[in-house]
């Protein structure tokens, strides 16, 4: 076999390897073997006919080139059911993985968010319990207050003392020079059920972690201790973004991982 013929035969074999790559082994091996045998027979015939090597090489390459479109269309026909089965298996795994990741991300966001919010109640709880104890033992309302603050600008805690008729007796929290009013029913609910924890929004964009603690003694009433949620809101926002980024990355990774699943032949 001349170098030209050998080179042409190599090109034909490489083309066959290329367009059969990734196909099921029976179809792939059969086509490669058939092409190998065909080329061998053509070279043998060329020898017997004393054909010029350049002509044989050109004939081999011509057969390749003229049939290339049919090679590709045959490949498409053979691989179509495999691709479909692979896609179906891949989609099933990916949907399951993405659903699990989404549930886990939501639970993490909810759990950590609640833990952040509950953590914001710690200081108001301590303040309300202390003030309620003092008021129950007869201390005057003004004596249980921490330093007065402007709720719009200060994150420091404050206390408001109410009498049993829900009138403000003393307050260290001010908003535009006044003590803001509580929503209807908050103190009544605490009177009926005991201590309550709420998120209070005394003005748009202003959120407070508030604890309402009823107290007894000679002049019963309610203590409200609260602290701004401004810092917590920032942490919750960054938590939301972090979990969203982790969720997105995890879904993308699960997508990549499922693409490497072995193909399921129909």
């Amino acid at each position: 076999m001349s170098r030209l013929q050998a080179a042409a035969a190599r090109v034909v074999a490489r083309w066959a390897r290329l367009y059969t790559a990734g196909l099921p082994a029976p179809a792939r091996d059969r086509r490669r073997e058939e092409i190998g045998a065909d080329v061998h027979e053509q070279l043998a015939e060329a020898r017997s006919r004393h054909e010029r090597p350049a002509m044989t090489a050109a004939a081999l390459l011509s057969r390749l080139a003229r049939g290339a479109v049919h090679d590709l269309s045959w490949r498409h026909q053979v691989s179509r059911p495999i691709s479909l089965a692979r896609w179906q298996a891949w989609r099933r795994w990916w949907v399951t993985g993405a659903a699990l990741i989404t549930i886990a991300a939501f639970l993490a966001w909810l759990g950590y968010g609640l833990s952040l919010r509950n953590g914001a109640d710690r200081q108001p709880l301590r303040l309300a319990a202390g003030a309620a104890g003092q008021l129950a033992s007869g201390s005057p309302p003004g004596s249980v207050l921490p330093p007065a603050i402007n709720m719009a600008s200060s994150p420091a805690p404050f206390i408001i003392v109410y009498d049993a008729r829900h009138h403000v007796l003393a307050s260290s929290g001010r908003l535009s020079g006044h003590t803001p009013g509580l929503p209807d029913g908050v103190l009544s609910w605490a009177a009926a059920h005991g201590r309550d924890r709420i998120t209070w929004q005394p003005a748009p964009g202003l959120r407070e972690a508030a604890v309402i603690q009823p107290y007894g003694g000679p002049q019963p009433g309610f203590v409200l201790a609260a602290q701004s949620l401004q810092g917590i809101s920032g942490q919750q926002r960054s938590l939301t973004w972090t979990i969203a980024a982790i969720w997105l990355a995890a879904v993308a990774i699960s997508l990549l991982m499922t693409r490497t699943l072995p193909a399921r032949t129909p």
Partner: protein
Amino acid sequence: MRRRAGELLPIEQAILAAGIELAAGGEPCFHGFAMARHIRDASAARQLTAHGTLYKALARLEQAGLLTSSWEDPGLAEAEHRPRRRLYQVTPSGQQAALRSTGQRASTAPRPDPGLSPA
């Protein structure tokens, strides 16, 4: 190429006709290159049928039940120091399809192509 069910493409007609001719000449089985060579010689063409065209058509005919195929005895190929051949044979359905196709061509074309006619 779109075609009606049961209709044969020219390459498929040529393969079946050549297979029938070879069988009539005492070679009931043929391999890919032998088919390409027979079609070239019968139609006085200058070139062999392209690999892709030939083997795709063979696969299609086999799938349609007009041909059967099997690998030859590996010992035989080894003894002759060559790759083993995939051997094809025209089935009775293939013979009927070839005859029908020839009849259709005869009814529509006044001058049949002698290279593609069954023996």
